[in-house]
């Protein structure tokens, strides 16, 4: 009973072990075959699972030209699972058919056959004796790498031709720098980093084969060649220092100019009599007292008129004297010393009348010298005494004229005084107006007395008229007395010799020229009424259109405008021709 149980157990055990571990070997596989020098070669295989039993592997090969199967001659030289074919067993340009067989107790396994030709599986050994040296080329270092082909490869006879490749990198870098060297056994590497540590490796390849493994790494340290660069830097530094010193010296020499250029001096205060030093050193009282200028502001106003603008300067007196002396027959009597009468021309534009002045003068000379009339030259004496007016030759001097008419006349002459200095009018104005008032009254009285004024007309001839003959080139008036005649109605003035001018006032709608009687002004233009012979001096010629007498107003003479008359330059109309038309 026990035996049966033991037998059963044994059977079960054996059956179990068989099923689990024992099996024919798996198929092995040839991994690679390589020849290092085209003379020998080695094949390696990878065994499969051995099936639990000790398995042996065998390599069998067959050459292409024969059917003989040979087994691998050497299983050990090349290591485990390898087969080494030595020179005698190696034929080139011959196909080898290689198979690996795995054998164990339970069976065999054949690998797939592999056809190889030795010349196509050449993979040389790495180059040997790689040496790296640092050499110098004109002071710049470079690496010289030299090596030798693997000792087994026969390159001398040309049996195998190798081409080489090397790679370089700095110790701290990652990427290699590759260089193909061709068939040469020496290579130069330039552009090195000063003081760097380099790694160099070399490998080779047959002309139609596989690359070898990289050779062992060679280390090399490049020496520092900074000293050569340093000398350059020293030179540059010295040169720049030298230049800098020169520039500084130049700046120092021209520092004043530079200072003026960059920081121009601030102009000091320029106050007259002001002491800058006082400002710096003195006290405030002293400063302010220094500011006070003794003669400022000016106290007197004596020269205030100096600052006034004067509009008119008429120097007539002296020139007039000279001119009149030349034509002494006419003008002597007219020349008188200047009388200082005040200016009270209140705008009466009679000062422009040449006839006014000259008629008066002439009358004084040629006519009956009934009175001690004088053609006086009124010189308007301004406060400065420089302003002169027309020679108001017909200005009756206050001393001789006793009649009210004379006083009236005086008023007329007053108009000749310039009134262009309004401020000057202020003092004499009351006097002027008074005279004017007198004139008004008298004229009106004259007007009323007109009728019986005939016999008095001779008395009225005492008015002095001077006619301006001409104005010479020296701007002097050449006077001639008015010819007193009664060519007209009694008391009327004769037609004077020479030319007589009237100012044109305007032209009315009927093309009639309106003449302005030269008189006291616009509002007072006491034109002479021929009949009344009320010559108050402004107009020596009276040509009236209207028969009415308007002693208090201007009588305008209207004449038809003739072209030639209108073209007179200064607006004056020659009334000589005009008056022929009218009874004067």
């Amino acid at each position, binding site marked *: 009973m026990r035996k049966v149980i033991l037998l059963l157990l044994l059977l079960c055990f054996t059956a179990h072990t068989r099923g689990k571990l024992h099996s024919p070997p798996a198929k092995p596989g040839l991994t690679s075959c390589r020849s290092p020098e*085209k*003379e020998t070669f080695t094949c390696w295989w990878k065994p499969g699972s051995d099936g639990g039993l000790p398995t042996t592997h065998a390599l069998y090969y067959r050459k*292409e*030209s024969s059917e003989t199967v040979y087994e691998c001659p050497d299983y050990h030289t090349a290591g485990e699972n390898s087969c080494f074919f030595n*020179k005698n067993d*190696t*034929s*080139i*340009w*011959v*196909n080898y058919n290689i198979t690996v067989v795995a054998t164990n107790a339970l069976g065999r396994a054949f690998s797939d056959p592999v056809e190889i*030709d030795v*010349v196509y599986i050449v993979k040389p050994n790495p180059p040997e004796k790689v040496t790296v040296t640092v050499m110098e080329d004109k002071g710049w270092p470079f690496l010289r790498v030299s090596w030798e082909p693997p000792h087994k490869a*026969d*390159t*001398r*006879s*040309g*049996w195998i*031709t190798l081409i080489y490749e090397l790679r370089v990198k700095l110790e701290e870098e990652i990427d290699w720098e590759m260089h193909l060297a061709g*068939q*040469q*056994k020496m290579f130069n590497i330039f552009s090195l980093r000063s003081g760097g540590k380099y790694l160099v490796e070399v490998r080779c390849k047959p*002309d*139609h084969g596989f690359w070898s493994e990289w050779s062992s790494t060679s280390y090399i340290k490049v020496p520092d060649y900074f000293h050569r660069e340093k000398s350059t830097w020293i030179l540059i530094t010295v040169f720049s220092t030298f230049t800098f010193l020169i520039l500084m010296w130049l700046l120092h020499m021209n520092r004043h100019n530079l200072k003026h250029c960059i920081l121009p001096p601030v102009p000091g205060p320029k106050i007259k009599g002001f002491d800058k030093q006082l400002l710096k050193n003195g006290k405030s009282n002293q400063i302010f007292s220094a500011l006070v200028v003794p003669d400022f502001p000016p106290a007197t106003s004596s020269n205030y008129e100096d600052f006034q603008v004067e509009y008119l300067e008429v120097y007539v007196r002296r020139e007039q004297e000279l001119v009149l002396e030349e034509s002494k027959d006419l003008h002597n009597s007219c020349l008188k010393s200047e009388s200082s009468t005040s200016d009270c021309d209140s705008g009466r534009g009679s000062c422009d009348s040449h006839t006014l002045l000259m008629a008066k003068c002439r009358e004084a000379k040629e006519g009956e010298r009934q009175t001690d009339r004088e053609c006086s030259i009124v010189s308007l004496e301004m406060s400065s005494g420089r302003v002169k007016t027309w020679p108001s030759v017909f200005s009756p001097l206050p001393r001789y004229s006793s009649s009210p008419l004379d006083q009236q006349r005086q008023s007329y002459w007053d108009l000749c005084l310039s009134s262009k200095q309004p401020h000057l009018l202020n003092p004499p104005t009351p006097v002027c107006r008074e005279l004017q008032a007198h004139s008004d009254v008298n004229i009106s009285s004259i007007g009323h007395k007109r009728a019986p004024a005939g016999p008095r007309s001779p008395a009225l001839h005492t008015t002095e008229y001077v006619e301006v003959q001409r104005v010479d080139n020296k701007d002097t008036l050449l006077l001639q007395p008015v010819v007193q005649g009664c060519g007209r109605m009694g008391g009327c003035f004769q037609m004077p010799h020479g030319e007589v001018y009237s100012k044109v006032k305007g032209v009315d709608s009927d093309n009639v020229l309106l003449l302005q009687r030269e008189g006291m002004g616009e509002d007072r233009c006491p034109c002479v009424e021929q009949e009344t012979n009320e010559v108050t001096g402004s107009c020596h010629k009276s040509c009236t259109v209207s028969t009415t007498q308007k002693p208090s107003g201007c009588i305008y003479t209207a004449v038809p405008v003739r072209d030639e008359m209108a073209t007179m330059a200064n607006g004056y109309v020659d009334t000589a021709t005009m008056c022929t038309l009218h009874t004067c």
Partner: protein
Amino acid sequence: MAHCGGTNGSKLFTMVLYMAAACGAIPISDLLDRASQRSDKLHSLSTTLTQDLDSHFPPIGRVIMPRPSMCHTSSLQTPNDKEQALQVSESDLLSLVRSLLQAWEDPLVVLSTSANTLPHPAQSIISNKIQELQEHSKSLGDGLVVLSGKMAPGAQTISSLPYFGGNDIGQDRISKLINFNFLLSCFRRDSHKIDSFLKILRCRAAKMLPEMC
């Protein structure tokens, strides 16, 4: 073959070399250098062609591919290892080279024509490279003629290796591909032989320039 006049031939070759150098003509080393460069290019082209073809080669083709021993140039006796190769004289080596090159003149035409109709995805690339192969082969052949003239009379010997494959490489797609592949593999081996021999010759001629080898 390996021992036939090897030492005497090398001496003669060296003498010829010095004479050529003395005359001032293009030295043989330069000629050989150019020739070996040409042959190197030739072999590289054939290698890339093989890789292009193998990219889409049907796996079954590997099994039934004819053996390389059936190449039409297999009858030519060439050294099988280094010792043998180094013992061959220069003129013999050149003769071998020329013979091999000559043997591939016609098959390359066959390859070229069949490449036009090759049922392969990379057909146009293959066709172009076949064209290049023909050009390089032609120029190398012409150079070798010049080179052989500078060498011993033995270099003029060219073994005839006719190609009997005909113009047709197969009817169906598989056979076409297989035959094309086979032919190309034969050429690849022979071009490698040519390149190796010329490089041996180059190293021998460059004795004055040891850095060449």
